[in-house]
C-alpha cells in the first residue's frame, strides 16, 4: 500500500467518523420525543454529568478567576487602571474561561466515562443484546446522554462564571487592594448580555459535541480491553479538539 492510498484511507476514515458522529447526534436529538418514558435515565445522566462534575468545575473556575485577576491586576496597577479589573475578569470568564474550562472538565470526566461505558457494553455484547431485544441503542443509551449534557453544561457554565468572578473579586480585594464595590461595579457596568449568551451558546455546542463524540467512539469500540481504551482516548482527544475549534468559530461569528 503506497503513501497516497494510506493517506486517502485515513482521510476517508476520518470523514466517516465525522459523518457518523453528526448522524448519531441528530438521532439522539430526534429521540427526545420519548423523553417522558426515559425521564429517569435522563435525570440519572444529568446527575452524573452535572451535579457530580460541579465540585471540580467550581475549583477550576475559582482558581481561573483568581489567576486572571492576579495577572491583570498588577499590570493594570502600574497604569492606575486597577479599577477595571472587574471588567476584564468578567469578560474573560463569561466569554471564554467559564464555558471552555467547564467543557474540558466534562469531556475529561464524563465524556471519557461515557465512551468507556458504551465501549465495554459493545465488546461484552450488551449492545447486541439490546438490538436483539428490539431496543434501539440510540434511543435507550445515546438520547439520555445527549440531552443531559445539553441541559447540564450551560448550568455548569453559569456556576463556573459566578464562582470565577467571585474568585477574581477576592484576589482583587486581598492582593491588588481594590474594594469589592469597585470590582463588582466594573463587572456590572461592563458585562454585556451578549457576553452571557455567547457563553451559553458555546456551552450548548460543547455539550452536544462531547456527548456525540463520546457516544460514537464508545459504540464503535473494537473488540477487547484495548479497543475500549482506544475509544476512551479518542473520545477525549476529539472532544478537546472539537471544543477548541468550535470555540474559535463561535467567537469569530459573534465578535
Amino acid at each position: 500500500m503506497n503513501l497516497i492510498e494510506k493517506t486517502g484511507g485515513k482521510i476517508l476514515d476520518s470523514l466517516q467518523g465525522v459523518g457518523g458522529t453528526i448522524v448519531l447526534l441528530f438521532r439522539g436529538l430526534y429521540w427526545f420525543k420519548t423523553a417522558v418514558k426515559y425521564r429517569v435515565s435522563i435525570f440519572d445522566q444529568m446527575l452524573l454529568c452535572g451535579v457530580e462534575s460541579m465540585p471540580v468545575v467550581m475549583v477550576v473556575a475559582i482558581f481561573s478567576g483568581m489567576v486572571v485577576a492576579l495577572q491583570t491586576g498588577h499590570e493594570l496597577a502600574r497604569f492606575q487602571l486597577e479599577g477595571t479589573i472587574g471588567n476584564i475578569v468578567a469578560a474573560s470568564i463569561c466569554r471564554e474561561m467559564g464555558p471552555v474550562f467547564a467543557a474540558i472538565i466534562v469531556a475529561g470526566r464524563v465524556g471519557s466515562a461515557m465512551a468507556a461505558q458504551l465501549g465495554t457494553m459493545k465488546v461484552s455484547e450488551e449492545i447486541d443484546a439490546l438490538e436483539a431485544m428490539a431496543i434501539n441503542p440510540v434511543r435507550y443509551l445515546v438520547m439520555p446522554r445527549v440531552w443531559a449534557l445539553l441541559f447540564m453544561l450551560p448550568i455548569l457554565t453559569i456556576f463556573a462564571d459566578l464562582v470565577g468572578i467571585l474568585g477574581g473579586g477576592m484576589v482583587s480585594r486581598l492582593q491588588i487592594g481594590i474594594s469589592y464595590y469597585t470590582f463588582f461595579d466594573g463587572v456590572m457596568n461592563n458585562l454585556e448580555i451578549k457576553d452571557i449568551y455567547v457563553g451559553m451558546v458555546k456551552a450548548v455546542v460543547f455539550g452536544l459535541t462531547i456527548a456525540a463524540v463520546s457516544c460514537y467512539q464508545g459504540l464503535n469500540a473494537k473488540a477487547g480491553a484495548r479497543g475500549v481504551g482506544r475509544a476512551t482516548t479518542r473520545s477525549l482527544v476529539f472532544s478537546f479538539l472539537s471544543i477548541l475549534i468550535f470555540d474559535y468559530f463561535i467567537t469569530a461569528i459573534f465578535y
Partner: protein
Amino acid sequence: MGGEEVLRGITLEVKAGELMVVIGGSGVGKSVLLKHIIGFLRPDSGDVLVDGVSIPNCSRKELYEIRKGYGVVFQSPALLQSLTIEDNVALPLQEHSGFPDDTIREIVRDRLHWVKLRGVERKLPSELSGGMQKRVSLARALVMDPRLMLFDEPATGLDPILTAAIGQLIVDLHARIGFSSIAVTHNMNLAYLIGDRIAMLYNGRIIEVGTPEEIRRSAEPLVQEFIHGIPNEGS
C-alpha cells in the same frame, strides 16, 4: 466478513417447534449464521426466511418488529451490568408490552422461577456466578414468550454439570412453551441432550443433518472426527 467468505451456500430448514442444533468447530461460522437470522448481518446472496419473511430485505423498523418474537441467548450472558437482575429481565417488557409495573414484576418473578432462580431480583449481574447469569439471560430471552429461540454457545464457560443443567432447562422450557429453536454449539453432550435434529457446519456448508442418533452413526468422516474429537488435516 472483512473480505473473507465465511458461509458458502448454506441451506438449512428448521421446522416449527423444532430444536435444531448446529455443531461445528471454532471459527466455522456458527455465530455468523445466527447473526444472519437476527438480522445483524446481511448475506451477499441468498435469503434468510423466518415465518416466510425475508430478513435481509426487512427495513430496520420491520426487523425490530420481528425481533420482538425472538429470544436470544448470547455466548456471554450480555446482561446490562448497571441494572439489577429484575430490571434486566423486565427490560423487554418495559420497552414493548405497555403492562403496568406490577404485572411486569409478576412475569419477571415467574420467568426467574422457570429458570430455577429465586431471591436474586435485587442483585446486580456481577454478584451472580456465570451459570446463574446464563440462566438470567435465558429468563430475559423468555420474557416476551418468543416463537423462536436462538442460543449462541449456551454452554460456554460452564462446567459439565452446569452445562447438563442448562441443557435440561432448555429441553424443559421447550416442552413447556413449544418455541422453535436454533442452538449453535461445539459441545456434543449438549447437542445430543437438546437437539431434535443436529446439523454439522463445516467449511461454510452444512455437510450433514439428522437426529442425534443419525449423527452418531453418520458415515461422513468429518462428522465422526468432530464428534469424537479427532483432529483432521483442516484443524
